[in-house]
């Protein structure tokens, strides 16, 4: 235990393993830092920008920054929380998020973050972009209207030979998720379920599944996202 790194988040004394990123370390210390692209155990992407924290006056993404000795991290401050809400709102207007008609509603992390950050309506105008739905895979539907391009599926999901089933296509505002038609055709039900579970929103949906949980019993119906985080240190 002696080699643990000591640091603080909003003044609270915390401890981390050497090399651990701030986000995982915060979680272990019972401090919630929101993120949509990060998943523990896979390479951080630093793309949703929600986990931005302030270190020595500079914003850094907690998922990509390793903890260092004596770091004083600001997390729950108006400047950062305001930025996070703005990013959530950007995601709502750049896609087509029809929560009432989404299989993932109630279990969706984007929606849950909007609840946690008390978004009533985005401050930005809705874009209503035209996006394609790809239902060519026998097991999955890719609904790009809902995709937030977090790259979780790209980073964590391969077929049994280690080949990527998901990848990005194009760039910038036209960026989209691409699914390999050939490789995805061979997915088992378990793999398809895993792909759906990785997706924080309702962009990867298993065919012939969904709406099987009554309202009131879903993950974020009663408690905000992040409520389950407890210190394990």
């Amino acid at each position, binding site marked *: 235990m002696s080699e643990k790194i000591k640091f603080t988040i909003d003044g609270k004394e915390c401890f981390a393993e050497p090399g651990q990123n701030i986000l995982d370390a915060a979680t272990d210390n019972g401090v919630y830092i929101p993120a949509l692209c990060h998943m523990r155990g896979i390479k*951080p*992407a*630093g*793309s*949703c*920008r929600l986990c*931005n924290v302030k270190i020595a006056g500079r*914003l850094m*993404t907690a998922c*990509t*920054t*390793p903890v260092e000795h004596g770091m004083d991290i600001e997390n729950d401050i108006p400047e950062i929380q305001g*930025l996070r809400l*703005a*990013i959530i709102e*950007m*995601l709502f*207007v*750049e896609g087509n998020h029809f929560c009432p008609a989404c299989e993932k509603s109630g279990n969706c992390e984007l929606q849950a973050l909007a609840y946690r950050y008390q978004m009533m309506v985005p*401050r*930005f*105008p809705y*874009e209503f972009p035209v996006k394609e739905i790809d239902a060519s895979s026998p097991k999955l539907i890719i609904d790009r209207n809902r995709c*937030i*391009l977090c*790259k979780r599926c790209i980073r964590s999901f391969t077929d049994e030979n280690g*080949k*990527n*089933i*998901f*990848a*990005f*296509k*194009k*760039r*910038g*505002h*036209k*960026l989209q998720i*691409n*699914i*390999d*038609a*050939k*490789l995805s055709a061979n997915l088992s039900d378990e793999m398809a379920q895993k792909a759906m579970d990785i997706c924080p929103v309702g962009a990867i949906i298993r065919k012939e599944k969904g709406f099987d949980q009554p309202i009131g019993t879903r993950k974020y119906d009663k408690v905000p996202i992040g409520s389950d985080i407890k210190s394990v240190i």
Partner: protein
Amino acid sequence: MSTYVKNIIDKYNNDETRLMDILIDIQSEIGYIPNEAVEQISQSLNISIVDVEQTLTFYHFFSQKPIGDYVVYLNNSVVANMMGRSEVAKTFEEEVGCGFNNVSDDGKIGLYSTACIGMSDQEPAAIINGCVFTKLSPARVKDIVADMRAGKNVKEMFNEYGDGQNNSELIKSMVFNNIRKRGEVLFSDYENGAALKKVVTMTQDEVIEEVKTSYIRGRGGAGFPTGLKWDFCRKSEGEIRYLICNADEGEPGTFKERVILTELPKMLFEGMAIAGYALDAKNGVLYLRSEYTYLKDYLENIIQELRETNQLGENIAGKQGFDFDIRIQFGAGAYVCGEESALIESAEGKRGEPRNRPPFPVQKGYMQQPTVVNNAETLCSVVKILLKGADWYTMMGTRESSGTKLISVSGDCRYPGVYEIEWGLRIRDMLEMVGAEDIQAVQVGGPSGTCIGERSFKRTICYEDFPTGGSMMIIDNKRNLLKDVVKHFMDFFIEESCGSCVPCRALTVILKNKLQKILDGNGVMNDLTELKKWCNMMKQANRCGLGQTAANPILTTLENFPEEYEKLINKDIDFNSGFDLSAAVGESCEAVGRTPNL
């Protein structure tokens, strides 16, 4: 399996990290990258089809369908538009018979727009089948289209060539250098190989120390001290080290690298070899933007010549164990690849998405090994620093900005071109030198830089006052600053964002729409307040330099030209959604055949 695709893949040893080169070769061989080729690549490289498409669809110059026997890429930069691009574009459309982003009915000629091609001093310009056509006029376009219809080779469509090496056998281009001012460092006497000979008598530490003492800072724009970067890299743990020269030069309005590559390639390669020596790097990569493909044969020939004269290759300059060689990596149309970590990703055959830091490239760069990425101008300067000494170098410039700087000047001025100036020159003096009059604004450092007005002309060009990566676009009073410049720049950033970070992908569009609302006369004061707030989010929240500076066109004009915005604002009302009922019902009324009844 098609043989030509197989040959190309074989040429690169089925190496996944050379995917860029494979795609570039196929694109140039058959004019597009057919699905069968994608499948073939995926099989040979043992990666999935979506992996190939991920790289392919990222770059502007790759295409998955035929785009014409002749492919016209007409530059669509702010400066090109200032110099009469719209007339040229119109003539192309009329003569070819199709609009931009289309191919003529017979499949012969394709018309496309492209971001700045590094010819801002001789606009309007286009690239046709890799060949650069400058100073286009409607009359010239008519001839070119007639030549294309007649099936002429692009090289035979003109017979007047530019100055200097542009006129050499392996280039034969109509591009002019437009070197307007020669300084003491770069455009002064140069004896090829002299610095290298001296360097091999020094230890690596001595070389790095000399560069440190010269206090030269990176000439790409960020201004990081070069010696320090070399030092960090050499002290990083790794199996091998790499040196990459960044000649991507995607910042609109910049073209100094073009002139370096044309006139000073030996100096550049010597600089790379010196860096290789200091870093103990055996491999150098020159990352070159696709737009400069017309220099490919010329540069490769020079690299070969240097190998033959023992300035590249093994035991360079007679020094045992000093091995260093260079390969050229072309890009394929992506501004963001000028960012060093995106450039590294691209050189590894991937989409040009900037990496997260840490680790920094000097720790884990190309192929996850310690890597120095230096700008071409930096590496050229290093040659003179080592030859003439750091003391000589620091005599020029200011206290914190030593030496000289190349500035690309374009826009509304009499003498557009490249100027080698000493740091510390007053902007006003610079503007006088280039023959600029009736100036409304100067865009310094490209779209990601700063737009300044009269008030700032007293400032000096140097790191301690007004730093720049090296370009000045001059905008005179007859231009509409917000519409013709700022909005255009925002479109540029929307197009060029890699799309990874949410704010850079989404907010750029939101900002541009807000600007459009103001331009449409629907702005209220609150729109300006929001614009400013949202621009600042861009600055803070994004991963790379592109995202952090993508709001600069709006932010710096809001700061320096607030009156341009305020005169468009209706100050009597506090809310205006900009909703236009007559426009909103137009489509449905037309569909059902009725007259809007408002």
